[in-house]
């Protein structure tokens, strides 16, 4: 049965290939400014993002302002993925809440050179991550990217020096930090709800700014939440996956 299935695996493959290669002819010409993807809502985003949201990076404007609901969902998905990793590997039961003594420094590969180089690099990587988040409105960047960079720095510490000298964050704490990120996100939305605006409508925030600048501050707060969640969950997934087996 198994071998039969593997032998006929090329059938759906060929069918999918035929459909995809045939359908490519009907797709809009590449780089056509009048293609359907570029005509409906996208011109609205491009032409009014700077004025309405104060963000000259339209990707951030769409991500954190126009489609903030969507991004809230994505952030929760990431947190859920981290939780799922933790639950699947059984690390959330009380007896198994942290690395045991034997596993405390399982995977380090630090030589003196790697150690010295990483010591030099890591502060700058973390600083760059913060820059990417804070400057995400005027240059490429944002919460997701900054979070990934910051998590890369923390994971680098763990790879080079083992878990013990790095930030000693147990998975239970990383999950809590990730949840704080989602809380910052939803909290920003709820504050505007209390000031008689819609959920995640940043123009209701009680800050001493007006118009686009106010909405920029709102999306910055949301991006900070995303940054916290992404950093925490990436580190969490790394920790849980490298925890080593007990069985």
């Amino acid at each position: 049965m198994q071998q039969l299935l593997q032998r006929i695996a090329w059938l759906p493959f060929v069918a999918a290939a035929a459909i995809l290669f045939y359908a490519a002819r009907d797709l809009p010409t590449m780089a056509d400014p009048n293609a359907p993807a570029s005509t409906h809502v996208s011109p609205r985003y491009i032409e009014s993002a700077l004025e309405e949201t104060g963000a000259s990076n339209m990707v951030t404007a769409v991500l954190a302002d126009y489609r903030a609901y969507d991004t809230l969902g994505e952030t929760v998905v990431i947190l859920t993925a981290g939780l799922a990793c933790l639950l699947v590997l059984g690390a959330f039961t009380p007896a198994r809440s942290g690395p045991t003594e034997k596993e405390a420094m399982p995977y380090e590969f630090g030589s003196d050179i790697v150690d010295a180089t990483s010591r030099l690099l890591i502060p700058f990587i973390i600083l760059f991550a913060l820059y990417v988040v804070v400057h995400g409105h005027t240059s490429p960047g944002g919460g997701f990217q900054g979070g990934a960079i910051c998590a890369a720095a923390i994971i680098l510490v763990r790879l080079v020096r083992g878990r013990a000298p790095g930030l000693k964050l147990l998975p239970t704490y990383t999950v809590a930090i990730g949840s704080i990120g989602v809380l910052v996100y939803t909290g920003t939305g709820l504050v505007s709800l209390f000031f008689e605006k819609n959920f995640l409508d940043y123009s209701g925030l009680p800050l001493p700014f007006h118009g686009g600048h106010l909405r920029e501050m709102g999306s910055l707060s949301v991006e900070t939440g995303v940054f916290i969640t992404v950093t925490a969950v990436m580190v969490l997934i790394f920790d849980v996956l490298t925890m080593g087996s007990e069985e």
Partner: protein
Amino acid sequence: MEAETLSVVNYWLAASLFLIGLYGILARPHLVRKLMAMNILQVAVIVFFIILGYKSDATPPIVRQGDETPIARNYINPLPHTLMLTAIVVSVSTTGVALALLIRIHRRFGTLDESELIEKLK
């Protein structure tokens, strides 16, 4: 005509990536390879969306300094970029969950090969 041929070739490249991933998922017996194939498939979807967002003679979707009234023609479509930005992070998370499941399977059965797994499940 030239532009159309070029765009079909581009779509074909994305479709080829997709098919490599699909073939890996269907035909390879090892579960880690299936996971890698799934990642290739996701990259194919991302590439496809990025192709859709491109415009000729346009700049990245960041308003240039001094451009008070941005015109849609001058900037590429920011929407696919936004969607793919979140898709990349979500694909990292799903890969993490899949790896956790694979570790779990390996701990339980000592193998990640599909046919051996089916034998052991009998």
